[in-house]
């Protein structure tokens, strides 16, 4: 049996589609100096992010030497892709 789609749903769908279209158009607008500057800022990570407060070492042997000298255990954050770099 045919069920009419509520007008509100049609409107919501049309608005969402228009929004996506506007967003896509905004991204394909010329990449001018203003957009360049804004994007550079937006893509710069927070230098005060909490994980940065830890004195991470990158060399496991250097860390072993430091652990031996300071009588502390090692904490090894071992990932696929460097945890401080890739991704």
């Amino acid at each position, binding site marked *: 049996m045919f069920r009419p789609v509520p007008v509100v749903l049609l409107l919501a769908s049309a608005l969402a589609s228009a929004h*996506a279209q506007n*967003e*896509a158009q*905004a*991204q*394909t607008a*010329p*990449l*001018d*100096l203003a*957009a*360049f500057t804004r*994007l*550079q800022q*937006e*893509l*710069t*990570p927070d230098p005060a*992010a*909490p*994980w940065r*407060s*830890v*004195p*991470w*070492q*990158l*060399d*496991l*042997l250097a*860390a*072993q*030497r*430091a*652990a*031996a*000298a*300071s*009588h*502390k*255990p*090692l*904490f*090894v*954050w*071992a*990932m*696929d*892709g*460097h*945890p*401080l*770099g*890739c*991704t």
Partner: protein
Amino acid sequence: MLDRASTFANPGLLELLRTRFVPVAIDQAYQRRQKDSEGDFYRRIAAQSPRHDFDSTTQGFYVATAAGELLLYNNNRDPAKVERLVRDALARFAQRAPGGQETAPLEVGEVDRRWHPKVPEGGFALRVHGKVLGGYPAPEDDWQRILQTAISRDNLWVTGAEHRALVRGELPQSLLRRIAHFHLVDGTRGEPPMWKPEEVQRIEIVRQGDRLQGEVVLQTEDGARRFAAQVLGFVEVIEGKVTRFDLVARGLFRGEGTYTKNGPPGDFPFAVSLTLADGSDVADAIPPQGSRGWIEGYLR
């Protein structure tokens, strides 16, 4: 990124790491393969964990003594759980070494060159960041919110010959190809797939004085993954040295990789930025993701 913004945003855990541990961060794809002292030490620790098959990933968090005794292995991200496990491991460490235990520092010996690449002589490194600019549905929880707003991080290495060409006012094709193949990728949700040579459909960037401008189109054969972007950048040279290299690529991205699932549906706005690495960030010294075990291929 998920770990940096969740597990390692826990103040209690961070305080422990700063004061009670020697913290080290590694891409275990290197150490589990290295034929040298560092590789031997890593495998000695990891072999005591459930991740002792060195032909596959051994990722996780390890707590170990300087002698290589494993006190904790965990691959859970929950911040409170990780802090509790780390405190438990610290208690076990204190029980094993009351008053401190003397352990000899390991000799470095000859390093496995394949897994110790360095920034090319006369070259330099760039920081590379990527971000999805929109297109996600509203996040349902904090994990999704973190992923949706993540900024990826990688490094790009420029060779000495390319540096000299940039100083002369040129724009080396090898550098453009490297940017396209290895760095115009969406790594915001995990390790991204790189572009194959045949997937670089167009890379037209010209240099006029200090200004770089153009466009790139990258696309898999089936069209399932694609990035078409405009590019704008600036290069400055002072006294024979590149002192500025800023570049932004912005466009529409489509698709995902094995380790970058759950991206926005369809085409979504995406941008990548490049800027000089000045050595002030510990991550500036990390080799490019695309160079893993194959630095010659990355730099060619």
